[in-house]
């Protein structure tokens, strides 16, 4: 196998990985702070994509406007879920929390079918990034290159937010010691709502950015990505953003090399990796040992 094709398989893996990272980042943030594994996160991704498409159609067809406006509608949905539903199940056992978010998956899947129809929708071209670039004599879509750059930027932004700002300090305080944070005057319920809405926005942005990448939007797109995001979140260590970023890179590369060399077993490979990490190092690469 030649160097060029290795480079191209790597690039494809990186762009896949960065997409999963965009979804897994919000999932991981919500799990790390609120302790809830959110099945509905895939639905936020799907809603983000559909809202972006509708917003850009209404606003005159510019993708960047859709990207800015679309995810805001999804944030409203996220706010309602946390404020009026999730807040009341934090004290319950794990199955209830998971199933509550699962109920929203069912609701949103059908809502998308009602609002946008059950068929697939085509997607627009992106002004400025529609062509492809020549890398070692083969063409690679410019947009995918753009995603490979956006992923690390989001990671950097999250790192600065969590480690360097006042808001991040409060988040870290509330996630390690909820009662103590509350005792020194942090309004924990409001903080949780804001973190959930921010996580929702991350998932919806992932979906909006995926609009030109996936080409066709279908009502089942959220369920496919949420499992990938779970795999990534588990491999990195549940709740660890650094781990999720690396996990996404690993899964992206494994699946693109898997598709290239053993197409029959690429899905099997990701899940065996997930099981192996859970068995040998359940806290993941970067999770804290409990």
């Amino acid at each position, binding site marked *: 196998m030649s160097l060029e094709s290795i480079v191209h398989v790597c690039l494809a893996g990186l762009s896949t990985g960065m997409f999963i990272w965009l979804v897994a980042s919000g999932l991981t943030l919500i799990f790390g702070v609120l302790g809830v594994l959110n099945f509905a996160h895939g639905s936020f991704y799907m809603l983000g994509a559909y809202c972006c498409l509708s917003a850009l159609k209404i606003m005159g067809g510019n993708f960047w406007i859709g990207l800015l406006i679309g995810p805001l509608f999804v944030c409203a949905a996220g706010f309602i879920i946390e404020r009026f539903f999730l807040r009341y*199940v934090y004290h319950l056992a*794990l199955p209830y929390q*998971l*199933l509550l978010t699962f109920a929203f998956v*069912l609701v949103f899947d059908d809502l998308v079918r009602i609002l946008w129809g059950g068929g697939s929708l085509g997607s627009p071209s992106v002004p400025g990034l529609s062509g492809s670039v020549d890398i070692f004599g083969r063409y690679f879509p410019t947009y995918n290159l753009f995603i490979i750059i956006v992923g690390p930027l989001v990671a950097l932004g999250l790192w600065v937010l969590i480690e360097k700002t006042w808001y991040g300090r409060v988040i870290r305080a509330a996630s390690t010691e909820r009662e103590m944070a509350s005792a020194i005057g942090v309004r924990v319920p409001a903080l949780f709502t804001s973190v959930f809405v921010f996580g929702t926005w991350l998932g919806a942005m992932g979906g909006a950015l995926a609009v030109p990448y996936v080409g066709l939007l279908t009502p089942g797109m959220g369920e496919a990505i949420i499992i990938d995001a779970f795999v990534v979140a588990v491999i990195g260590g549940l709740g660890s953003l650094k781990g999720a970023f690396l996990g996404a890179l690993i899964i992206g590369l494994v699946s693109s090399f898997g598709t290239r060399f053993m197409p*029959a*077993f690429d899905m099997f490979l990701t899940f*065996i990796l997930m*099981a192996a990490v859970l068995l040998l190092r359940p806290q993941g690469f970067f999770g804290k040992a409990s």
Partner: protein
Amino acid sequence: MNRHLNAFIAGLALAIMILIGLFGSRFVIYLTSRVMILSIFAMGYNVLFGRTGLLSFGHAAFYAAGAYGLGLYSLHVSSHPLAGILAGIVCACLLSVLIGFFCVRHTEIYFAMLTLAFGMMVFSLIWNMRSITGGDDGLVGIMRAPIALGLVAIPIIKPQAYYFLILLLLIVSIVLIYRIHHSPFGLVLAGIRENERRVAFAGVSLKNYRLGAFVISGTFAGLAGALAALLESHAEPFSAHWSHSAAPILVTLIGGLQTFSGPIVGSVVFIVLRETIERFTHNWMLWFGLILLVIIMGFRGGIVGILSRWRK
């Protein structure tokens, strides 16, 4: 008094089931068959979920193991239905021993994620090993041959006759699971759910008991899968998908977690409700999601929970 009432309800339910089998229309018989199969799946699952307190997202894999075990046996070895069902159960049992051996090392969310990973591994194998499993087509043309018992052979090709076979196996399953729940083994499982540390200090091996519950629930899932494959004469790959593992969870939750009859009541409600909603709208998932929300937010005891509270 309570005991007599329960016996009365069970007898009444049995009488209704027999009447449905004798006089029901083709559609009602088919629907009731599906309710019974889902009941077996959910009751077995509840040994792990409601009784031991472990949430698995991988039980669809055992259901599919039962379906494919029966399908492969009847297509390649012999079409005897009972032998086929047995083959399906054995497949599911072996697979759940193998997967359970790894999964019971964790609890809570890590257990759920491990079962998800193993379940999806099984799904990807079924999906990709086209030459054996038929890939996305699944196994087609599974026949309901007559049950040969030495001198006599009982034909089950008619839905009505097959209905009674399922009913018989459902009753056997209910009795078995009832015995399991009320055995010392079942009481230890409930103890693990309530306080695993105390049970461990009493000298009980948590892992072995969890594995026991896991294998029991996986085996019943296999029985349900085998019966479903015979009913539909088809084993399909999406029966192994994680989203199918959600079915017994939802059913148990509707009927009532930690109640014995919850999974059965939930199965009836689940299938009847789904058929009714689908008459009016294609969007049954939306309504189902809303019902689920109401149950989780306000009625966590499920239907059986509400009824028994009301009876007091």
